[in-house]
C-alpha cells in the first residue's frame, strides 16, 4: 500500500497534475452546481441590458459580472451552464470511445490474424475521413442534440484508442512476463485481462484525459456550426458563434467562452501529461 500511496503523492506533487486536477474539479463543480452558482437564468433575456461589458470595463452593470450578450442574457450564467454541456460530452464521449476502441485494440493486438486484419482495415478506412467534416455530417444526419454529439464523437474517435492500444499490446505481448504466464498455465483471456490490461492502464488514463479535451473542442465546433444542442441552450461553442457576429461591438461574448475552452483543454492536457510521467512504475524509476 505504501507504494501506491507514494505514486499518488508523487502524482499530486506534480505541478501539471495539480493544475489539471484543479481545472477538472472546477468544471465538475460548475456543471453539478450550475443552478446554485449561476446568478441568473441563462435563458432570461433583458433586451434593455444587451451588450453590457464585463464588470472591469466602463459602463458595466454589477448585476452582470461578465456582461451580457445580444439578447441581454447574463454571460456568466451562460458560461456556467455551458460547462455542464461540455463536461457531460467530455466524460461520456471519452469513456465510450475509450471502451469501444480499447476493446477492439486489445483483440486486434493480442489475437492477430484475420481479426487484426479486419479491425486494422476498419481503422484505416476511418482514418481516411476528416474528423471535423465527418462529425458535422454525422450530426446533420442523426439530428442535432446532446446524444448526437456524443454518438458522433464516439463513432469518430474510437480509432484513436484502437490504434494506440493495439500497438502497445503488440509490444507487451512479446514481453517475457506473458510467456511466463503461459508456462504457469494461464488462459488467453486471463492473460489479456490480468496481465496485459493492467500494464495499459496508465496509457489509457492519459488517452482518456486527452480525449476529454478533444471532446470539448468537438462539441464547441458543432455548436459553432450550429449543429449541437438546441440553439437556445447555452454552450461555449454557441456563444463563440454569437460573439463572432458582434466582434466589433462586444468582444467579450466571443473571448470569454474561448478562454473557458482553452483553460479546460490546457488543464486536461496537463493532467494527462503529468499522469503519464508519474503513474508509470517503469518511468518513475
Amino acid at each position: 500500500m505504501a507504494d501506491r500511496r507514494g505514486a499518488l503523492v508523487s502524482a499530486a506533487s506534480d505541478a501539471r497534475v495539480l493544475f489539471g486536477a484543479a481545472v477538472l474539479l472546477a468544471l465538475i463543480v460548475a456543471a453539478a452546481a450550475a443552478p446554485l452558482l449561476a446568478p441568473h437564468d441563462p435563458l432570461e433575456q433583458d433586451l434593455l441590458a444587451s451588450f453590457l461589458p464585463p464588470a472591469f470595463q466602463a459602463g458595466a452593470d454589477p448585476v452582470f459580472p461578465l456582461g451580457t450578450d445580444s439578447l441581454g442574457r447574463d454571460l456568466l450564467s451562460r458560461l456556467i451552464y455551458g460547462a455542464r454541456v461540455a463536461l457531460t460530452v467530455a466524460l461520456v464521449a471519452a469513456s465510450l470511445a475509450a471502451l469501444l476502441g480499447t476493446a477492439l485494440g486489445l483483440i486486434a493486438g493480442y489475437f492477430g490474424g484475420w481479426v487484426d486484419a479486419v479491425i486494422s482495415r476498419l481503422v484505416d478506412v476511418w482514418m481516411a475521413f476528416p474528423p471535423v467534416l465527418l462529425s458535422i455530417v454525422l450530426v446533420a444526419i442523426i439530428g442535432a442534440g446532446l446524444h448526437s454529439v456524443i454518438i458522433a464523437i464516439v463513432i469518430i474517435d474510437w480509432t484513436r484508442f484502437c490504434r494506440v492500444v493495439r500497438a502497445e499490446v503488440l509490444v507487451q505481448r512479446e514481453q517475457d512476463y506473458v510467456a511466463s504466464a503461459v508456462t504457469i498455465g494461464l488462459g488467453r483471456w486471463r492473460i489479456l485481462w490480468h496481465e496485459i490490461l493492467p500494464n495499459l492502464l496508465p496509457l489509457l488514463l492519459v488517452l482518456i484525459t486527452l480525449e476529454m479535451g478533444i471532446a470539448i473542442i468537438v462539441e464547441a465546433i458543432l455548436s459553432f456550426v450550429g449543429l449541437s444542442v438546441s440553439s437556445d441552450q447555452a454552450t461555449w461553442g454557441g456563444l463563440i458563434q454569437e460573439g463572432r457576429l458582434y466582434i466589433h461591438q462586444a468582444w467579450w461574448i466571443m473571448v470569454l467562452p474561448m478562454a473557458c475552452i482553452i483553460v479546460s483543454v490546457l488543464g486536461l492536457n496537463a493532467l494527462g501529461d503529468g499522469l503519464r510521467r508519474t503513474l508509470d512504475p517503469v518511468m518513475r524509476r
Partner: protein
Amino acid sequence: MLEARNLRLALPDRSRKPLFGPAPMTEILRGIDLELAAGESLGVVGESGSGKTSLGRTLLRLYRPTGGSLRFEGRDIATLAEADLRPLRARMQMIFQDPMSSLNPRQRIAEIVTQPLWAFGRDVVADHVPALLERVGLTPALAARYPHELSGGQRQRVGIARAIALQPKLVVADEIVSGLDVSTQAQILSLLANLKRDLGLALVFISHDLSVVRVVCDRVMVLSRGEVMETGPCERLFSAPRHPYTRALLEAVPLPEVDPDWIHGGPIEQEDNRGIGMQIKGTVALVTGTSRGIGPEYVRELAKRGAAKVYAAARDTTQIADLAAEFAGTVEAVELDITDPVQVAAAAERCADVQLLINNAGINHNTGLIAPTSLDNARAEMETNYLGTLAMCRAFAPVLQANGGGAIVNMLSILARVCLPLMGSLSASKAAGLMMTQGVRAELAGQGTTVIAVMPGAVETDMTRDLPPPKMPPADVAVAALDAVEQGEEEVYPGDMATGMAQGLAGDPKAVEKELAGILPQ
C-alpha cells in the same frame, strides 16, 4: 523424463516477408536429439543464432515444433493442444533471461510468486510467500515491492522463486546470469545448484558462457545453427572436446590467467594477412632531394599511388620545374637545403600537413678515406647525409605527431651496414644515418610514427656512374620503399644486390666485408 527426437522448429522470417502471402519459414532447430533424466542437469551452449533460446522454449512448448517428437514424462507433447498441456505445465517451468521483462511490472512480488499456485488452484497459505522468498535468499519484506524497485540479482531470485513455487520436475533456465555482475552471478549460480540438489530438479541450463555451464551442469550439449555439434559429460567434453567447433569455442574463452600467446593465436577471419602500415593514398608527403637520382622517382610513385599532395624539395627549385608541371595540382616545389637550419625550420612550418617524410637527399663524393682529397669531402657528406637528415627528423617529428603519427623514410644504403672502401666516407655517413634512424624510431614510437630505413644496393644514378653494373633502376627503389611504408616494415633492402648482402651480413658479416674490400682496385 524429457526426451526429444529429431526435434525441428521453423519460425516465419518477417524480414524476408514478400509483398503478399506469408513470410517464408526459417529453420531454427534442425533435428535435435536430447534426453534428460530426473534430477539431471544439461547445459546447452551456443553462440547467438545457434537456436539455444528457441530450443528452451520449444522444450516447454512455448513454441510448437514443426517436426520430431518431444516426450515429457513418457507422454508426447509435441502437438498437444494448449488446454491439454495446462495440467503438465505445473511440472515444467522456466526462468527467463531478462527478469525486468519477465516479471509483470504491475504486480507485487508476493503476487508474482504465488500466481502459479492460484493458477493451478492450489491453496495459498499465509506463510507461502515468506517461505518461497527465503528459499531463494530474499527477505520476506520484499513481498510488497514492485519488480522495478529491486536490483537485478533480486529480480532474478524472484524469477527463480516463481519457477519453483509449484515444485516442478523440470526447469529450463535461459541465460539467467548473462546480465549480472560476476559477484551476483556467483550467488545465483550457487543458489541454483543448491535448489537443484535439494529439490531434485531436472535442469536445462542455457548459456553462451562455457565456464558458467561447467559450474551447474552434469552434461553439456554444444549447439550451432540449430544442430547439435557435440554432447557429452562435462568432464570429458571440457577436457577432451571431439568436435572442432567445440574446440574453437573453448579456445576462444579468455580464461583469467596471463597468457601472452593467447591473443595472437586463433583463427583470423581474413586470409589476406598483410601488414598494417600506412596507406599512401590520400596522404601528404614531403620528399627531399628531388632534383635528380631517386628523388623524382619517389615523387612520381607517390603521385601514382594517389598521394593527396607531395612537397618536392630541392636546393634549386628551377631544376624540378618540369616535375612540378608534370603533376600540377599534386606536386608543390619547395626550396630546401637540409643543411641550412633556417630553411629546415621554414619547411616544417610551411609543410605542416605532412604525414610522410622521405629523407632522400644525400650526397656522394665517391672518395676513399685516407688517400685522396681533403677531409672536407667527408665533412660535407656527414653534413648532408647524417646531420641534414637528422635535422629534418627533428623538425618534422612534431608535425607528424600533430598529423596522427605518420612515417619517416630515411634513404640510406646497404653501405650503412658494410663498407665499400671506394666510398668509405659515404659508408661512414650512412652508418651514422642508420644508427640515427634506429634512435629516432625508438624515440618516436610513443607518438605512433613509423621510421623506416631504406638500404638499396647500387642504383643507376649519376652519383654511381663510376660504379660497375649491376645497378638497379631508381624507380624500383622508390617502389620498394613505398611498399615498405604501406606494409609497415621498418627495414627494406631493395634489389637483389642489397638483399643478398643483407642475407650475407646476417650469416657471416666478415665474409661480406672481405668481399667488398676486394673490389678496391689495387
